[in-house]
């Protein structure tokens, strides 16, 4: 099951920083992610949720917050 808690755990594992309480808050603006942590985070999300993110979907906007990640995974993850 896709939950924001599982997503938070993945993001925190990669970023080694606490994720903002507000799921809508930008992971970039809050300093949790930078450009080079983003590919790692998406890789970990793919493993955790058994989903393959195609290159066409590899845009930072889709993975900018816990809420957006949850939206994406709810459509694409099994």
């Amino acid at each position, binding site marked *: 099951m896709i939950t924001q808690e599982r997503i938070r755990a993945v993001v925190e594992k990669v970023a080694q920083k606490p994720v903002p309480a507000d799921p809508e808050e930008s992971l970039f603006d809050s300093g949790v992610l930078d450009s080079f942590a983003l590919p790692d985070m998406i890789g970990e999300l793919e493993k955790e949720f058994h989903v393959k993110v195609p290159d066409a979907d590899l*845009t930072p906007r889709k993975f900018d917050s816990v809420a957006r990640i949850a939206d994406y995974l709810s459509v694409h993850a099994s």
Partner: protein
Amino acid sequence: MAFLRAFGSYVPARVVANAELAASLGCEPDWIFSVSGILERRYAAESESVVDLAVQAATNCLTRVPGAEVGLVIVSSGSAERRFPGPAAETASRLGMAGTPAIDLPVASAGSIFGLALGAKLAAAFGRVLLIATEKMSAVIARPPQDRNTAILFGDGAGACLIDPEQGAAEVVDSCLHSDGSFAENLRLEFDRPLHMDGRVVILQASRKVPAVIRELLERHRIPAASVGTFLMHQANQNLIAKIAQGLEVPPEKFYSNIARYGNTSSASLLIAAAEWNALGRFRTEEPVVFAGFGAGFHWGALLVVGT
């Protein structure tokens, strides 16, 4: 069949260290290094053109093969001073090759990898192919409004490679090229505007596409990435090079890097790196070496060679 016969390079004399750039951009020198791995870069003089840089690099290359006849000149540049003619014909003429066909390859950072792959195919038809990649990125990033995040990255320089249909230090085995215009807006240079780069998109895409194209190429020949002796990459950003090494699960030490000294010289960077690496006599018999690049378009690709 085609071989990499000789390499050459040229970087302008003026060294611009992070401290100088940081003062003008309002940032810290250490920040520049931490986000890019760059310590300094070279800037051409105002009077120097991309053709001037190209002629220097090509001359440096051709002195290694005295009297070599060239059947085709390819010049890669994304920062040429005018729309047309591109720098290829003028470069060829200044090298004493007026009359030799000369074509431009304006695909920015991926220009060298495309030029190597295409040149290797064309050598059978034209004879020796002189590939030159030349960039004056300092002129591009100086255009207002200046973007600090891109201004810190780029430098000027040129590299060259003589591709020979008959002999050389390394034989070209195969290549793999791709283009996808879906992200054209994310990395672009418009007339009289500064370079626009959405770094997050570029890094995200490159960190996937470059390992994937290298794997695609190596799998055709059943070569594990771990068996590759050296990876010669477009020198975009040290952190990106590390990310690509991670994606291929190979030690980053296998990736030759000179970005600390020259910054990102766009298409020139791959050939400058190859020239420096080759000058150390690094090609080994039967050892695979992979060239790879990625840039605006997006265009990306990889080339497999083995030492002869």
